[in-house]
């Protein structure tokens, strides 16, 4: 077992425009990327449970050329609107950092 941040080169989140949020997890090499992919920790089901967001609104793309996994979801609140707490969407990856990867 290892935590996701111990395996990843970069974990981050950011607005993809003011209406969407996108999370990137990048790995140094193909083997680590494959290990995390096959562990299934970043799946629509797991992500939906962790973030409490409906499965059909989650888009997960595996980007082999960069050994990267990208998760994109609608922002629950538009950037900077009443009640938004993260203008740039920069701290929305927090719950992924300590995820246990088999």
């Amino acid at each position, binding site marked *: 077992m290892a935590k996701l941040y111990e395996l990843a*080169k*970069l974990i981050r989140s*950011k*607005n*993809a*425009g*003011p*209406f*969407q949020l*996108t999370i*990137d997890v*990048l790995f*140094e090499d193909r083997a680590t990327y494959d290990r995390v992919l096959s562990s299934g920790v970043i799946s629509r089901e797991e992500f939906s449970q*962790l*973030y*409490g*967001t409906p499965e059909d609104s989650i*888009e997960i*793309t595996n*980007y082999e*050329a*960069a*050994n*990267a996994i*990208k998760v*994109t979801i*609608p*922002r*629950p*609140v*538009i*950037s*900077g*609107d*009443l*009640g*938004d*707490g*993260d*203008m*740039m969407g920069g*701290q*929305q990856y*927090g*719950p992924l950092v300590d995820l246990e990867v088999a």
Partner: protein
Amino acid sequence: MEATREFRILSPSSMIGAGFRAESLERAMEWKPDVIACDGGSTDPGPYLLGSGGLYFSRESLRRDLEVMLLAARGADIPMLIGTAVAAGGDEQLAVAVELVQDIAKQHNLHFKLAAVNCEPPREYLKERLRSGKIRPLANAPEIDESTFDRADHIVAMAGVEPYQAALDAGADVVLSGRSTDAAIFAALPTQRGFALGPSWHAAKILECGAACVVHRAYADPMFAWIRDDHFVVEPPNPDYRCSPVSVASHTLYENGSPYELVEPNGTLYSDAVTFEAMSDRAVRVSGSRFEPATNTTNKLEGAELVGYQTIVIGGVRDPVILRQLDSWLEGVEETSRRRITQIYGSDMNEQVTITFRRYGVDGVMGSLEPTPTPAHEVGILIEITAPSQEVADSIGKATAHVGAHYAVPEYSGLITALAFPYSPAEIPRGPLYRFTLNHVIEPDDPLDPFRIETIDV
């Protein structure tokens, strides 16, 4: 043998006003760029900049960066292109950039042709496009109608390469554009000069944040790219910085919903079959990018409207008894404060006021997305009052701070003080709140229709 054809781009910084080292720019100029291109704004800071027409960086910050860049560009007699100049790229903000450039030119006795691309289309034009079905929603877009255009304080269309190219065709040496896609600023010239679309657009995406694609970015600084027929190479001019295949790949994904499709006004960049190779310990070669031109040009619209005026109150809670019932305690504070609003202003005003509690130490950062909304040993409460005027927001802020300070819990008998205020007075006027109201694209008949290009002999 014919020398390899290449186009060289210098991107001085992530944003005009964010800064760069003059030494790094000087070194980059020795690499003989064909253009200096830089982004000047963003939607990152939220809807305030578009709504208010204000600045993100100060005039002094903007002036310093523009001055060093302009002197370098004019000295080498190469074009300088600035996109989203500045802040949100509205017409008032563009005027600030134009004024600064004219002022710098005057000081240094520079003479050149300046083009300014205004990106706020007339409201009547937007309404006509909406009626003609030429405005379409993007993902997660709010519902709109013609009144959305009337209510907005500012609406900008994002320029693609076309306005830059039209300005360059008209002989401009310096182009300042209002709201623009980041990549268009960098792709405008190489694609106009017939360089391969895939490498040009992909290099443009990598260059848009200056040195953001290096391994460890300690401060904003320049980035340099060489675009060739079937690949491009990036290398930072700053000797303390280096690019790696992972750092460049990571910027390909940055702030875009899809990792390998970047939709631009006149086509889409695909980077699914790309290879990132280290050329040295600091330069990376990228090949395999392709760009598919679109049949019709579309420009993204951004709009912002005023929601109200805010006053905030910051207070901390350390008592475990209160923290164990934080939700109901806050509900009680709101109810009591609302009774007070009705006493002062009547129930109509009560309906127009929003009271929000952000709870740092519970879910202040993630809100509804937070998986573990469990209170920490202390919690920071940020009370936010949003009202139709600043005066009313301030008045309700004072009242709510007082209610919260002494709101009781059933466990104790007698008066308590429940909120630890770090400031006197506890309430802080915060100013206007704006909202982004558009996530749509407009399809113009002619790609230049939404824009107005002004040429000035400086």
